[in-house]
């Protein structure tokens, strides 16, 4: 299995939701919004590093990190990352080494794409 991205997830979600960013700017201002995104990317990087360091047998820790990423990515307008993290959270109790590696690759690829989209939108 090369990827765990289901066609449904790939087709139903976008990498970066401009609408969330615009709502945050409207509610909180550009400066605060950019500061929040900076914190988000730093924290998401840390979560992905921790996930990379975990063995597939650390199921509780994988669930915890995936749950956190699901929530924060959803809040910051990265729906695809949020869904991939939700999928990993759900699979963690029975995940195999191969599926864990594939899930991580999908998550990292989705995150990298979303971050590129954010940079291209925000400048």
């Amino acid at each position, binding site marked *: 299995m090369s990827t765990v991205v289901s066609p449904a997830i790939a087709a139903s979600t976008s990498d970066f939701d401009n609408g969330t960013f615009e709502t*945050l700017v409207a509610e*909180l201002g550009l400066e605060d919004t950019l500061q*929040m995104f900076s*914190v988000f990317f730093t924290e998401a990087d840390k979560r992905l590093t921790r996930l990379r360091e975990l063995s597939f047998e650390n199921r509780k820790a994988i669930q915890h990190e995936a749950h*956190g990423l699901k929530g*924060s990515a959803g*809040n*910051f*307008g990265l729906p695809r990352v949020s869904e991939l993290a939700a999928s990993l959270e759900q699979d963690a109790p029975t995940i195999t080494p191969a599926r864990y590696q594939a899930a991580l690759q999908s998550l990292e690829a989705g995150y990298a794409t979303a971050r590129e989209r954010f940079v291209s939108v925000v400048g």
Partner: protein
Amino acid sequence: MAEDQTAQTMGDPGRASRRGGRQPDSLLVIDDDLSICTMLEKIGEKAGFAVKHAVSLEEATALLRMQQFACITLDLGLGANSGVEMLHILAGMGCTTPIIIISASQRSMRDFAAEIGDRMRLDIRPPFGKPIDFVKLKATLVEIKEMLNLQRRADSAA
């Protein structure tokens, strides 16, 4: 002793003003994700609160022992601990502060936690899921702040 003091002060928005020098209403954000804490801090500040955050049950308990809060937002996943444990601690402190549960857990889990809080006679407000509806959350916080202002006016009149 510290818990007793907290129990005496929590949920009494008029107490700070009666002691002299009205303090801004404080919001305590309890969430183990720093990016969510930052987001909730900004929303809370826009709603007129002075905001502090805690990323663990221990940090939150320490803050609650040091000062009173006018409102609390609570995540249900707090690392090794759960938000429900925090509800037990708040109930033990005699907390009457409005509490808003904000969690990426399934709705049934959020509702279940809210029901537990209700049974402990905590002031649990309707829970929020994640992604958070920022506009609705800000409106809820503004509403709580206005309620506190009204309560203060009524206290002064009395």
